[in-house]
């Protein structure tokens, strides 16, 4: 039932074998990407004292890092499209390591913003994008499971980095800790080494072949603008914006990201305001992270099943609505036991959404357009991510009550989920109609939405003479050549 285009790479992804090592690599890479901005906050008190800045000044380091990680998406996509995943992840690891080491010698807050915030953030952006791309190349049938396992890196690494950071701080102070964390982040290079390139056509040779095809097909009177334009399309597939499914996904995601992080930021404060002591309140977040760790691979497993796989977009909407409902019910909770229950359910909902968030995009976009799509999605998601927690904080300041925060976040997320659900029904319906109108099934074409994609990318020699129009079997993606 999935409308996604067939695998345009022209080979069958291994769905196993070395692929599992690639999943480990992606797990490490994604783990560093999501966990580092959060885990660094342990050093902020000490840095704040030494630099005589306010806590909010220092907390900007994390925000800048997250923003750079998301904003660096398109650049990362372009690089991955051109060079493949392995060199990019290794480069990302080196950037992170070097910038952390430089930061440990820093003497001003601006220097830390630059090193940890911007440079390490960009390094993490390279890591994130390339890891997701390589999973889509190695897996198809087992892709939801692979995605779930890789995304589980985030809670696992947070669980492991947080106490480690505390230990390093006590033993070496914040400078020594940043030095050692820089070395640890070089392990992303190990993750990159695991990401063996796959596919007979890597982007640069594809681009060359495609260029020669263009010239032979369209004669020699090609204006340089058109050549540049087509090259720009190779660097980043801007055509995704014409894709109905992509736009639906984007809007739903923006709504989710807007409401997703504020409850995490304010959960301890909310608990403390209801009489819970600080340690127990911090414990709530650990519970959430612990649950998240197991829910992500579990969701991947469920999404891989015969019944859910063709309906993975609806499963994603369900996960979002579940998450939002948890938040809406939170203000009813007044005592600690129920707060623990809430933290567990929050972990479940959060893990479910994040396990599926990139799987759904892969499902919609297919391998060729996924790197560009994910880059564009992340840079656009920068905005709600940076706006969400401060807006929620503003609500708390105005009304003096946390419940409005939970109402806002819950409502936005539930609306996003319902929007996705309804619009996906509409989208699939329209696709069925379009498919019914398709004239010649022997045309080699990209089936599905997004007719703006350059169809010449598919070089004939990589496809067999079988029908290029994929048969849509129930329970799996279209069969490949």
């Amino acid at each position, binding site marked *: 039932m999935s409308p996604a285009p067939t695998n345009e790479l022209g080979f069958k992804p291994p769905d196993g074998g070395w692929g599992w090592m690639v999943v480990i690599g992606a797990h490490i890479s994604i783990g560093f990407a999501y966990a580092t901005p959060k885990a660094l906050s342990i050093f902020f008190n000490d840095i704040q004292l*030494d630099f005589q800045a306010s806590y909010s000044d220092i907390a900007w380091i994390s925000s800048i890092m997250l923003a750079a990680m998301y904003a660096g998406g398109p650049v990362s996509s372009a690089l991955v499209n051109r060079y493949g995943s392995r060199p990019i992840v290794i480069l990302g690891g080196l950037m992170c390591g070097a910038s952390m080491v430089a930061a440990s010698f820093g003497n001003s807050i601006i220097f830390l913003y630059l090193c940890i915030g911007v440079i390490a953030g960009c390094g993490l952006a390279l890591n994130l994008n390339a890891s997701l791309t390589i999973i889509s190349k190695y897996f198809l049938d087992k892709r939801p499971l692979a995605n779930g396992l890789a995304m589980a890196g985030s809670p696992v690494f947070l669980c492991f980095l947080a106490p480690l950071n505390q230990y390093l701080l006590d033993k070496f102070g914040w400078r020594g800790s940043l030095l050692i964390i820089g070395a640890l982040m*070089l392990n992303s290079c190990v993750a990159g080494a695991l990401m063996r390139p796959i596919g007979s056509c890597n982007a640069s040779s594809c681009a060359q072949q495609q260029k020669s095809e263009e010239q032979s097909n369209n004669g020699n009177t090609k204006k340089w603008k058109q050549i540049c334009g087509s090259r720009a399309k190779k660097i980043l597939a801007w055509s995704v914006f014409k894709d109905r499914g992509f736009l639906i996904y984007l809007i739903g995601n923006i709504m989710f990201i807007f409401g997703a992080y504020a409850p995490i930021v304010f959960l301890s404060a909310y608990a403390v305001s209801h009489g819970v002591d600080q340690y127990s309140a911090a414990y709530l977040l650990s519970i959430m992270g612990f649950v998240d760790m197991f829910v992500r691979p579990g969701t991947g497993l469920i999404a891989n099943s015969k019944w859910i796989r063709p309906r993975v977009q609806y499963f994603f909407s369900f996960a979002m609505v579940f998450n939002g409902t948890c938040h809406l019910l939170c203000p009813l909770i007044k005592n600690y036991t129920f707060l623990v229950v809430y933290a567990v359910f929050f972990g479940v909902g959060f893990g479910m959404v994040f396990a599926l968030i990139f799987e759904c995009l892969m499902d919609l976009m297919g391998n060729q357009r996924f790197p560009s799509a994910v880059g564009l999605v992340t840079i656009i998601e920068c905005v709600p991510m940076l706006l969400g927690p401060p807006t929620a904080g503003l609500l708390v300041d105005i009304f003096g009550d946390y419940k409005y925060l939970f109402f806002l976040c819950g409502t936005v997320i539930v609306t996003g989920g319902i929007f996705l659900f309804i619009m996906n029904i509409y989208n699939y319906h329209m696709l069925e109609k379009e498919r019914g109108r398709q004239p010649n099934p022997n045309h080699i074409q990209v089936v599905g939405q997004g007719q703006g994609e350059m169809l010449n990318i598919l070089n004939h020699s990589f496809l067999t003479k079988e029908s290029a129009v994929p048969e849509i079997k129930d329970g799996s993606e279209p069969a490949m050549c």
Partner: protein
Amino acid sequence: MMQASWMLLLLAWGGHANTKTVGQTLPPVEPDVHLLADVRSVVLQGKSHTDKVDVPGPMNLTLQCTWTANGNKTLNVTGYWLKDGRDIDNSHVTLRLENQQVHLKRTFLIKNEESLGRYSCMFGNEAKADFILAVPHISDVRDKPVVSYVGDSVVLACKVDDRKPEPKTWLWFRANGTDKEQITTVAEPQKYQIKNAGKATKLHVHNLTRDDSGLFYCAAVFTIGTAVSHLELKVITIYEPLKPFVTIVLEVLILVTAILLFERGQSKKSQVQEASEKEVANAEPPATNAEPPAINVEPPTSTSSATPSGESNGLEKSSSARQRKS
């Protein structure tokens, strides 16, 4: 009669009185509007209760206890006060239960540090409430040492909780053997800087050396006494974190090299495999229909000695194909 004397005690005591408190007898009070007054009350639910009271300066503190007798037949109960476990003279009073409740109230003049301590209101042997009067203590005592590096600067901070009263001033001390030596910025202005800001204080130490490691004491000076807290400073060289750093970098290099070598080894093996398969395919005779039926199917000698199953399958297939054709 007793009540009247108690009323007198509610009046303030002037700060210029010369009489010292001897034993536990309360001195006579004189009205003095400059002294602060405060009231602390406790309603006893169980058998005992403890309350902490922060006393920054001399004040008149009224302590009140209310106790609900739970179904006791006794109509009268003796209420009295203790300070640090010892009876306060003239504090015994017989109280009558009204609606099963009894109140005990007394105002104490807290003059100096000796006046601080544990004050207990007792209801016979049935119940008691403790009030622990002390100088406000410094909050967030850091039990882990502050770590910094040779040649670097560090900031040590102490603060009093926002809800507590502000100290008059802050002082810093350095441990010198068993003594405490006060840190003054006058003596070494390049080394130490003290910045006091009401409820918080910061000590800046510059040009750290290994000798600077040790205990530092911050003292919040209140009118009535001083609260002291300590911080430990550890000064280390850059070589300490450098050891784990180098270890981890080496580990990364080893792993990356191992993974890449493994991959090269695997790709070489598959290249050899492909090459020998190609040779086998090339060595087959091209025209098959002209051949006689019984053909000697010997593997060509040009193939390598290591024949993986793929090759032999290929040979078998080609031979069977030839036999079928002929």
